[in-house]
């Protein structure tokens, strides 16, 4: 059964489509990784899904309920972890969770149990009485999550929940996501950290320019689309004009799909590096570019994303 069904959804700002006829289905029990460069339409899609923004065209249903026609019922089923910290600094961790849980109608023992569970899950039980002002960035992020899950939502949407935190807190959050999923919640997870999405997602969708350009399990995507190798060539300092000319010539090569310079490393995407190494070295030497090292990566989400969008995820 589909937990989320997005049908032909359009969102326009001043006549310009930010989300353009988007179709997507997320099954119950999945951890769905939603990827896309900045401006791809991910946040707009999430805001429409949670009823925060009106839909210009099409419809979204959550758990079989239309967001357009019954937004409050949909909101009851969702827990949103916003990208920005959305907590009251002057209230204790517990009071924050209680306040937001009450907005979902939780009262009495259900409220107490939900709040305790949420604190336990994010590892803040022993800091329940403390105010977030005394928390580290990671602890605030964990509290941000706890505020969204005390009412035991069927769908949890996490919009970049690990931005700017320490590895310990990141691992804790990723573990929490898995636990929530095991407890029965469907999760939509967006992140700029590809490795996080690879680590926890059961299914991945890639958005670009308001459209879903790829969707499936990681294995499916790599099988169907991601046949490209990523070749990283570390070069010595060379004149910019020569490097630009070399990149231009590389892109004219029939087998090379992408070529770009990241600091002193050339990132090259091609179906298989085996037959083209000679050509690449020839072009670089022709432009008097000294090669320091080569590195070849097997297809992964990062190369897949780059192959599909022509951009790095963090661009």
């Amino acid at each position, binding site marked *: 059964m589909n937990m989320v069904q997005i049908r032909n959804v359009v969102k326009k700002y001043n006549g310009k489509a930010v989300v353009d006829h988007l179709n997507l289905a997320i099954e119950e029990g999945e951890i769905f990784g939603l990827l896309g460069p900045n401006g791809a339409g991910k946040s707009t899609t999430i805001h429409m899904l949670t009823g925060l923004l009106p839909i210009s065209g099409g419809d979204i249903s959550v758990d079989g309920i239309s967001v357009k026609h019954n937004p409050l019922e949909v*909101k009851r089923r969702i827990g949103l972890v916003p990208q*920005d910290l*959305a907590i*009251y600094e002057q209230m204790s961790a517990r009071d924050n969770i209680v306040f937001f849980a*009450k*907005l*979902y109608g939780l009262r009495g023992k259900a409220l107490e149990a939900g709040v305790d569970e949420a604190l336990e899950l994010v590892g803040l039980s022993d800091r329940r009485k403390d105010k977030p002002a005394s928390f580290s960035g990671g602890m605030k992020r964990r509290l941000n999550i706890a505020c969204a899950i005390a009412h035991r939502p069927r769908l949890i949407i996490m919009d970049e929940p690990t931005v700017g935190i320490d590895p310990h807190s990141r691992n804790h959050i990723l573990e929490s996501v898995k636990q929530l999923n095991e407890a029965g919640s469907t999760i939509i997870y967006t992140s700029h950290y590809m490795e996080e999405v690879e680590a926890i997602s059961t299914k991945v969708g890639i958005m670009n320019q308001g459209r879903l350009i790829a969707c499936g399990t990681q294995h499916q995507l790599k099988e169907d689309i991601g046949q490209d190798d990523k070749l990283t060539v570390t070069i010595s300092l060379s004149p910019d004009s020569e490097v630009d000319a070399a990149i231009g010539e590389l892109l004219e090569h029939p087998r090379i799909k992408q070529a770009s310079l990241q600091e002193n490393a050339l990132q090259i995407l091609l179906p298989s590096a085996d037959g083209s190494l000679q050509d690449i070295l020839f072009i670089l030497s022709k432009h008097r570019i000294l090669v320091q090292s080569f590195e070849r990566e097997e297809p992964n989400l990062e190369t897949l994303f780059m192959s599909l969008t022509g951009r790095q995820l963090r661009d």
Partner: protein
Amino acid sequence: MMWNIAVNELRRQLQMISILVVTFIVPLLLIFLLGSSLSGSGKFKVESRDPEPFKAGIVQQDQGVLAQAFAQFLTADDVRQWIEPIAYADREEVIRLIRDGKLGFGLVIPSTFSDDVLNGRQASWEMIMGNDYANNLAAKSVFGAYLDIVNTQQALALTAEHTGSSAAKNGIPPAAGTLMQGSAGEQQNEAAIVEVNPMQDQPNPTAMQYYSVSILVMYMLYTGMSLAISILADRQNYTFHRIMAAPVRPYSYMSGKLIGQSLIAVCQAIFMIALSHWLFGVDWGRDIGALVIVCLLLIVSSMALGSVIIAYVREEKSIKGLFQFLVITMTAISGGFFPISEVQATVGPFTLSHWAMQSMLRIMMNGGWSDTLHYVLPLAGIAGVLFLLAVWSFRKVVNYA
């Protein structure tokens, strides 16, 4: 949902010590400071109190015929009820003692006083005012009464001179009438000061009453600013985002905010009214119901003003600046800082503070419903218009996009 948001609003505000101090302690301090420092300005009614004799330093340099009469005058019970005269030889010493607060008043009678009176020249004595407005008034009245006696006797003497009675033989010349005219004029001038009504046709409260009203009105108006800043803070810390993603209708959110802030304003009003009564003896009048209505109209106006401003202004500094300008300007124009009759009468009626202050002052003075209603109705009208503007701006306030 609405009550959850309201209670949360109340709790968050009341948890902050700085807000508690600004909301509850500062207004009382302002009432005390303004009320006590400006009570002697002559603009307000002096509170009635039982007369207690105060020390008045008398420097009697006159050795003439009127000196003995003056000494006798000072022994009268009616005088002793007000003044405890103490003789001094040096004017400077009296001034020093008054400055130190050891004397309440000073009177210097020059050596030529009797001679001037008897020879019909302009006679004068010097009154040195003390620190207490009421004592000064009492002293001026007492010593003015003595001059009245002298003048009456002179008038009788003048009449007797024309009729050839014994008074004329005592040598009081016709020109002594100058003192009578002069002193009478002086009495009128002093009386004129006492009788000046700072609010003309308006109620005549004490300074404490007046400033209790003006500070209460000013602080009630500031609650609208608290509402606007609270909504802005929700937007800036993204809690508005989270609340709107929960099953909360926009009007529940707004109602919760309004109720929470209004409850704080109600607590503030009760606190200020009760504490000003207990600590400073401010009489708020008998009609508590009418006072409650005026306070509620003021809170509605203030909240509506806050809602309209947050719909269009999105920066804390701008919100604070705009509110400060509006509230301080309205308070000043309506005479909230210092009564200025002309400004109050001409520009005052264009302000919210004017109608709120005048309504409360009339309630304080037990002015009767018809008189009070004359001021409450315009206040209700302004509150209604502001409320409609707030309803019209509502969508803009809760628009997530």
